[in-house]
């Protein structure tokens, strides 16, 4: 019995789409419908349109190990290398090496990066950190060519 009701409901939905019998809409309905449709369109564009920034931090360590983290969330990542533990830190959309057991610590001094293609590395400890992905700025540049 309930199966029949389910099919009826589907029928009803199909027929409703076809016939709009004596629309009883009132003045405020239209702006509401338009606003909600705009909301749906906007969310579709922003989620599916590839306009957002999806930047990622990719860390390569010794032995081909790889780690991936989103750039937009603060995080501290200890990476093991032959010399010890390198501390990679993601902070407010930037990534940098906070500490490393290498003698010169040039990697720490190298500062932070945040754009795709940029990188920092601690070569003595075999830690290579780069920023990957695309952002809306990127798309504009690609279009300029």
């Amino acid at each position, binding site marked *: 019995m309930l199966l029949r*009701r389910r099919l*009826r409901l589907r*029928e*009803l939905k199909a*027929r409703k789409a076809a016939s709009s019998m004596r629309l009883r809409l009132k003045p405020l309905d239209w702006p509401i419908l338009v606003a909600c449709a705009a909301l749906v369109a906007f969310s579709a564009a922003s989620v599916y349109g590839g306009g957002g920034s999806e930047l*990622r931090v990719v860390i390569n360590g010794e032995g081909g*190990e*790889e*780690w*991936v*983290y*989103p750039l937009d969330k603060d995080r501290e990542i200890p990476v093991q290398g032959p010399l010890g533990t390198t501390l990679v830190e993601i902070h407010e959309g930037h990534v940098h090496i906070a500490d490393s057991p290498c003698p010169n610590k040039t990697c720490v001094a190298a500062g932070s990066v945040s754009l795709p293609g940029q990188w920092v590395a601690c070569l003595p400890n075999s830690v290579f950190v780069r920023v990957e992905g695309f952002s809306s700025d990127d798309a504009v540049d690609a279009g300029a060519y």
Partner: protein
Amino acid sequence: MRSAERAAAEAARLAAARAKRAARAGAYDALFAPWTLSAAGFLVSIAFLFQPVLGLKALLFAAFLAAALASGKKVSLAATVFVSLGIVAANLLVPVGKVLWRLGPVLVTETALWDGVGKAVTFEGLVYVSKATIRPGLRLPGRFGSIVARAFVYYDRIIEYRGRLKPATLFEDADALMLAVWDDAEAPEAPPPEARPPRGALGYVLAAIAVAASYAALAAGILGR
């Protein structure tokens, strides 16, 4: 025709399975006072929800699954697997952590994977503990409970309704349905079936053990870190 025979055999098998589950449900419900069981279920759910160690959570999940099966509820492992895979897949979409596998453009990362598995286990575990501890005999208290009980009575009437709902006359038919269910003065107000109090203490003991075990696991999980 062979297909008719097969359909009949299938129907018989389903009916037999339903009867077996009903028997199990009867035995299970006879053990527990509904309120005790639901209160225990609530407490266990909290301990389960906050359990930090995934392995312990998985053990609890297995226990809930077993309890739900023992209680005669229909358990669809296929649905559980499907939903769990969906949750894990959704969590894998944003890669986080050490890369475990790379299948073309798809990355399977460690942290995302365990997050997804944890969320799936939590989600399905809560579903099963609910199934095992929320039983039909449960009466809610107070005026709210009496309204819910009356709603159940009306619901039974809706299910029993013999009239038809045709799309062409949908509004009239729906109206007739509502009037018939509401005005049904002929049918006596069926009092909701009172759950019989359990005959022994076994149910209380089992419930207490379940609660204690879940909290012991919670303590172990928290302290073990």
